[in-house]
């Protein structure tokens, strides 16, 4: 099964563009428009956890920081690696393995995805 990546961003075009690129490169994607939706999708019964989460920071309802806090509290979700993709100026976000700045070059994004995603059965420490 193609590895699955969760894309979390409040901008519909970003979600769509990221999904297009990832799918073109052989991944499957799941999307959420904010942190709350992301948690709901992750907790849907019967769902295998994604190999990586691409996370925006500025989102309504529940922003990226809040999402990370909730994710870390949940042992079922805490091990999923998170890469932040943001238009803001943060250089480091606690709980995220890397911070990419929008607009991120596709090559840079994919290098980060390849580097941080869980291989099958592997669990990276948060």
């Amino acid at each position: 099964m193609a590895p699955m990546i969760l894309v979390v961003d409040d901008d519909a075009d970003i979600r769509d563009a990221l999904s297009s690129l990832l799918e073109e490169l052989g991944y499957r994607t799941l999307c959420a428009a904010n942190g709350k939706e992301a948690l709901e999708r992750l907790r849907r019964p019967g769902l295998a956890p994604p190999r990586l989460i691409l996370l925006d920071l500025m989102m309504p309802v529940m922003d990226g920081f809040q999402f990370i806090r909730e994710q870390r509290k949940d042992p079922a979700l805490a091990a999923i690696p998170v890469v932040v993709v943001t238009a803001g100026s943060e250089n480091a976000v606690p709980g995220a393995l890397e911070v990419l700045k929008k607009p991120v070059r596709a090559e840079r994004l994919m290098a980060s995805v390849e580097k941080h995603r869980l291989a099958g059965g592997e669990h990276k420490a948060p």
Partner: protein
Amino acid sequence: MEIPAAILVVDDRDSNLLALEAILSGAPGVNLSTARTGKEAIELARLQEFAAVVLDAQMYPLDGFDTAERIRDTSAARSVPIIFLTAYDLTPEAVRRAYSDRIGAVDFLTKPVAPEVLRAKVAVFVELFRRAERLKILERERWEAEEQRRGAERTRFLSEATAILSSSLDLQDNLDFLARLTVPRLADWCLVEMMEDGNKGPRAVAHFDAAKVPLVEEMRRRFPIEPGDSCGPAQVMRTGRPELYRDAPRELLGRTGADPDWDRGMKTLGLTSAVVVPLLIGGKAIGSLSLVSGDSGRRYGPADIGFAEELAARACTAIANSKLYDAAQNAIQRRDEFLSLASHELKTPLASLELYLASARASASSGSAERIDKARRQVERLTKFIDELLDVSRVNLGRLSFQLETMDVCALATDVVARFQAQAESAGSALELLCEGEIQGRWDHDRLDQALSNLLANALKFGDGKPVSLRVMPIPNGVRITVRDHGIGIAQDDQARIFERFERAAPARHFGGMGLGLWITKHIVAGHGGTIEVASHPGQGSLFTVDLPLNPGDPPDHGTNDPRRR
């Protein structure tokens, strides 16, 4: 110098007058005035203060005694010593009457009078007069010295007050300082109220007995001032004019109706006398300062109004500054928020654009792929320009901030040069780095990267395919970075424009051909406490020299330090 004294001699007989004149004139510093009738004498006494009056007891039509009585009526002569000259002995009753207060004789001499005797007696009174005058002079001098001392002390108090009031740009501080400055020198306790608070209570309170401050606040909360009050802070704020309450009325300070708590409270705090002055900015009342005296028993007078107004004026200057500062900070914050929002909104669609182009490229023919890459290059250019725009805005607002970290500038130079190799190749320029070992210092990594990248980009752009070199070398207490190209060089005029003295006001358009990058580079270097210079000749290339201290200290970081408390 002898204090001049005047003597009045009164006799209705010319011969007597002449004789008396002869006897009494000649004393140094003594002026002689003569009168031939009681009426004349009274007139003269009204106009001038005499040391003594020599008065003929028997005159016509107004006799000596009546004359003396009338003279006493004039205020200038109420207590002037009067020596009576009498032609014959008077009855004891007459003499007693003469010595009474209403006539006030001090001596009786029988005519013909012995000159020495008269001179001696007059001399005594002249001397008494002079002593009294000397005392008056001394008293006046003492009072003037006292006034001067009081004036100097007042000035000193006011200039200290100004220093204290202006030591903070925080409005509440200003008001607290004002209240505390008035106690105890100007008041036993005081209230500072602000118009904008309505009924919320005093903004600042001070009391001679610090333990009573909560009581003042409580009293005010329970008995709030009403805009329609006929006296007190509300009235003063309404009219913009000060009010003096020599004996503080019960209606003062917000009381309405009879209330035993009010009486008890005021008794504890002390309410004897009060002055309320407006706090004026631009002629408009923004608040009031109420000075109250209680236990000290002090009673305010008109002079106190002036002093209170002076103090209030200085407080208002500080208050106005604080309000301006707040307004400026708010404006800056709104601008910052706008910049962040604008940045976010601009970058989001660019991000999608890049990702769509990249995914299209994955399944594109080679011709299309090339064009798609060119399109993606435009996204990069747009992104860079947006970042530069934001930087320029931040510099213009003085809000370029730096995050310092301990780092090796040689390592950074190596990274930057590596990144530019591809661009150097396509420009046909050999790119070389000369840097030995490690040079550690405290700088903003990303900003320094930006500065070096800008310099290299320019060197390659104007390098005309000739070699470009980046050198990094230590200098005392710092590091020197040079970027050399052998390209088209920079005209003398343009050099001057680039390197006018560092001024935030130097407009970015002066760097036309160089783009915004060099202007930002200059500010990054300056922000680190460094310097940047160029040496260049048209056709011979340019040498940019950047000197940076190893430890810039704290560069201007307008975001984090609160300059309010100086």
